[in-house]
């Protein structure tokens, strides 16, 4: 499996670099060497033991090293599930930043930069070089290394010191191809000191072929800055979605990350939040609704590297049919990170006896003055509550729906864009009713 890509890289190294953002080339060979050493992760590797990626990686995908445009105008063709959110709107088609942006994006505050990695590294090479790879470059992870070797472009966002974005930014990733296709992209998000920004990333699939996306997103959040990262996946079940989200928080920063998998094929999200200054606050959340043979694996790490930080983690899953879920909650507290407060909760409901959930808290605490708690449950819907509701005339299916919506409600509380929260409530309800794949137009399911 790996050999094919190793050969590909060696044969096309020049072409890959020629069409890539210059800054990304600097560490490309090094990333390739790491990939050649590590290979793709298998279930033998501790951090990947719950999810078998082999069937997804074996597919013979096309790649687009030459960066040819795909014939699509997303502004015309695409209706996202989250319309009506007043946002600065951008599209990435496969791994290419779509250039025609909305007129309203001209209203971005002065100094804010949103563009492709390629453009950013041409216009602001120093800025990009200061941050690119600072988190991902150290990871001993086959997927991240692969991304470092093959990703040529991505989404770039820079919010300078003291600037607050008046609206959320929405980035829509669309997978569009007539043949089985792989996309690699590397996003870089820089929120400087005391700045404030919210980003909503939506992942979609447009065509009925097999897709694989391997995306790495590095986020740097400066002192006293506030950042929200919402990620919503609504893709079809021939999609393999591999995401690595790395967040570096400086002192007194405040971050919410909320990763929501509404509909998918095979998904692996690696989320790592490093608290690298005192008094950071972070909320790491997510939800999964899966059925049929969907697979979702959220691997999370919260690293308390400095004292007096506060982290809250909440992940919830509802799994039906033969779907598979996995959650790992790694919580690391450095020796000197005294007065850490860290809380973690993972709750799961299995609607069908064939659905499977694996959950694993992984606590590595080296400081002594800390408040930490964690809890994980796997259960069914409460039969007594169901009967109670039915005895009031509410039919079985409606009663189940009320319970499932209630179960997910607290994850949605961790959305600080109210219009998005309302919209998500509706999408979650639709999904739980089994209506989402039929009505939203962008999901093609078998």
């Amino acid at each position, binding site marked *: 499996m790996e050999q094919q890509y190793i050969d590909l890289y060696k044969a096309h190294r020049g072409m890959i670099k020629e069409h890539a953002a210059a800054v990304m080339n600097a560490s490309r060979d090094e990333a390739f060497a790491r990939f050649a050493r590590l290979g793709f992760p298998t279930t033998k590797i501790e951090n990947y033991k719950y999810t078998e990626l082999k069937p997804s990686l074996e597919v013979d995908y096309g790649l687009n090293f030459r960066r040819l445009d795909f014939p699509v105008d997303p502004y015309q063709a695409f209706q996202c599930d989250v319309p009506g959110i007043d946002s600065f709107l951008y599209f990435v088609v496969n791994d290419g930043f779509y250039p025609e942006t909305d007129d309203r994006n001209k209203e971005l505050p002065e100094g804010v930069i949103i563009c492709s990695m390629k453009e950013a590294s041409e216009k602001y090479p120093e800025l990009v070089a200061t941050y690119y790879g600072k988190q991902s470059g150290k990871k001993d992870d086959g997927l991240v290394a692969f991304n470092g070797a093959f990703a040529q472009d991505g989404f770039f966002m820079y919010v300078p010191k003291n600037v607050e974005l008046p609206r959320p930014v929405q980035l829509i990733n669309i997978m569009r191809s007539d043949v089985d296709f792989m996309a690699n992209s590397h996003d870089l998000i820089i929120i400087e000191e005391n700045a404030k920004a919210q980003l909503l990333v939506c992942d979609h699939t447009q065509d009925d072929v097999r897709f694989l996306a391997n995306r790495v997103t590095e986020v740097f959040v400066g002192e006293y800055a506030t950042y929200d990262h919402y990620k919503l996946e609504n893709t079809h079940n021939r999609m393999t979605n591999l995401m690595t989200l790395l967040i570096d928080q400086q002192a007194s920063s405040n971050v919410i990350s909320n990763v929501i998998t509404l509909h998918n094929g095979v998904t692996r999200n690696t989320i790592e939040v490093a608290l690298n200054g005192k008094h950071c606050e972070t909320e790491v959340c997510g939800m999964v609704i899966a059925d049929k043979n969907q697979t979702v694996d959220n691997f999370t790490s919260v690293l308390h590297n400095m004292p007096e930080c506060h982290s809250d983690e909440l992940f919830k899953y509802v799994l039906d049919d033969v779907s598979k879920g996995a959650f790992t909650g790694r919580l690391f507290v450095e020796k000197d990170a005294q007065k850490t407060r860290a809380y973690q909760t993972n709750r799961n409901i299995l609607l069908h006896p064939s659905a499977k959930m694996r959950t694993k808290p992984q606590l590595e605490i080296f400081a002594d003055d800390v408040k930490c708690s964690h809890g994980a449950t796997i259960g069914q819907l409460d039969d007594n*509550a169901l009967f109670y509701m039915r*005895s009031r005339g509410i039919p079985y299916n409606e009663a189940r729906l009320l319970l499932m919506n*209630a179960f997910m409600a607290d994850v949605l509380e961790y959305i600080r864009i109210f219009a998005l929260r309302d919209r998500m409530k509706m999408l979650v309800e639709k999904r739980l009713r089994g209506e989402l794949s039929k009505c939203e137009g962008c999901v093609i399911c078998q």
Partner: protein
Amino acid sequence: MLVIKNLHANIDGKEILKGLSLTINKGEIHAIMGPNGSGKSTLSSVITGHPAFEVTHGTIEFNGTDLLELAPEERANEGIFLSFQYPVEIPGVSMVNFMRSAINEQRKYRNEPAISATDFLRLMREKKELVEMDSKLTNRAVNEGFSGGEKKKNEIFQMAMLEPKLAILDETDSGLDIDALRIVANGVNKLKSPENATVVITHYQRLLDYITPDFVHVLYDGKIVKSGGKELALELEARGYDWIKQEVEA
């Protein structure tokens, strides 16, 4: 209205109801008393269709329909209501959502349009006043963190909202202080009409001082072993159940 004939019911293969018969007509109030574990709550569960109980014998007819053929929600929408001995907490489901769903399902069942937002709010307000229920409670999740007495009051509130034809109150008086007892009993009396019927399951005469039963039944070991007028309740209060047990075993 409700005709139960020779009812046998099991849970986990264990027979709890062992040939119970009971007839209730509209306009009547029946009290069911009996020692702990005799099957009173089981009877309510079987009438409302709790899936854990299996009916092995006998029939239950409600206004001419075979109740045992209906799902719990259909029985509710036919007009049967149970005030639970142990009301269930449902975290995350708000009282408002819960009641609106219940009301609208009932209306759907009757081919009526969904209730408007203003009518619903008016109905909630009216019924809250009837049972002197605090708005703090209706603004919360169903029964979540309610005290024992508040849960019981909430049952009567729901009953007032749904206006059932047959209401079964399973120890609704247990855990109520004197004031709450009076409020609950008043609520029940105000909702009483010649068209509906009430079954009161209780251990205590004190509730029956407020809600006067037309009939009092003793349920013992899965059967109704004695029936009488309201004076039977006074006699049970004075003498306990031993004499009944002796009568049955003789």
